[in-house]
């Protein structure tokens, strides 16, 4: 579904990504881990077509992927560090607005269902400014999955969520994979991330330091790899 080869990104002379290979197929859930500044968010910004890499090849669904490919954007869902929801609109209005930009049919029905799924059904007509941080994050999750994307990209998605919200997010990720979609998430939630991912990738200083499947790598091995990356400190 998605394959990036030797992805590099330079900001001026500073290397942010130094040749990262990444791939996910249907039903796969790739977890990105590593210290702040490892390049996880930058990698996700490239995979979500927010920016082009300086060099390297990115392909999605068998074709080269570029930032101006609107048809491809339709197949991606992205949830960033910040919820990025409109505070002056209601939860329902936020989703209906995005649904219309994605040209979805039955937008109101879909929006209602998505809001109920993330536990915001009773608050759907409230202005988002009155939502808590966790509720805004739930709304952002509903927005990212409203159009049932084939690939879901999540950047530290558990941030701000309460335990119930975290479980709900995990269920959403599993459901995405079960219906044949792919998920790539960046996280600092080590135990939760280990349980969720079907493949683990530890990054440090813009490179992949270690990767394995949980089935073949016990959690303590993963933790050791991650400790090694974290011991290097931030870039």
């Amino acid at each position, binding site marked *: 579904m998605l394959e990036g080869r030797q992805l590099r990104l330079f900001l001026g002379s500073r290397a942010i990504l130094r040749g990262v290979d990444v791939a996910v197929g249907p039903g796969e859930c790739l977890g990105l881990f590593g210290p702040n500044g490892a390049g996880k968010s930058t990698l996700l910004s490239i995979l979500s077509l927010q920016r082009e890499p300086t060099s390297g090849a990115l392909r999605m669904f068998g074709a080269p992927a570029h930032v101006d490919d609107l048809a491809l954007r339709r197949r991606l869902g992205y949830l960033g560090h910040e919820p990025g929801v409109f505070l*002056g609109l209601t939860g329902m209005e936020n989703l209906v607005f995005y649904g219309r930009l994605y040209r979805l049919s039955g937008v109101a029905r879909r929006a209602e269902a998505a809001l109920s799924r993330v536990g915001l059904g009773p608050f759907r007509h409230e202005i988002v400014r009155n939502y808590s941080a966790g509720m805004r994050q739930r709304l952002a999750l509903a927005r990212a999955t409203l159009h049932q994307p084939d690939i879901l990209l999540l950047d530290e998605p558990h941030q701000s969520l309460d335990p119930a919200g975290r479980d709900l997010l995990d269920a959403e990720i599993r459901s995405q994979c079960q219906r044949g979609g792919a998920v790539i998430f960046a996280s600092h939630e080590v135990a939760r991330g280990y349980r969720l991912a079907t493949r683990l990738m530890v990054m440090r200083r813009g490179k992949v330091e270690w990767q394995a499947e949980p089935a073949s790598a016990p959690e303590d091995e993963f933790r050791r790899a991650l400790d090694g990356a974290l011991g290097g400190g931030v870039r």
Partner: protein
Amino acid sequence: MIRAAGWILWKDITLEFRGRELLVPAGVFGLLIAMLYGFAFDPAKNGLHGTFPGLLWLGIFFASFLAVGRAFSVEAEASQQLLLAPIDRGSLFLAKLALNILLTLVLAAVMTPAFAILLQTGLPPETGTFLLIEALGLVGFSAAGTAMGALAAQTRLRELLLPALLLPFTSPLLLGVVSATKALYGGEVAAAGNWIMLIAIFDVIFIVVPVLLFEFLTEV
């Protein structure tokens, strides 16, 4: 592109209707300018028909500047998400342009009578032509303001950069609308027509070019 622009405009109008972050501060500022002009120029003693067009248009431009300059910063974080949606970025420009035109037209509708009353000049003769000049002038100002606002919004110095870009770029437009309004006061409708042509050319350039370049403007 037009349909997506329509939805974005609906969202922006809803946000402005609820938050009143653009129109109210700009409108109050515009009315304060009118009052200060009234105090400073003593219109009862000094006939202001000769200077009224310049005073009016400077007032409208400065007040519009406040509204247009902030149009990209309202809910800026959420608006970044729009760049991920499968929409042509030209639709973002068209939506912001339409919003800015609406805002500046409302401002002008409030400020023009206020200026005419406080400066005791009355509206110019040929009111229909004057309204055409106002509409074309504000479309041009909004188009330039939207393009420059998009460019400035990508930088850290946006508050400084926007006036530095917008004021020089809109000076031909200001010259056009002031001269056209002056010509109306002097009863020279044909001369006003020439200036209206200049304003219309400015409008076309500042609408067409940014629609084509908006992708670039939002990535600089």
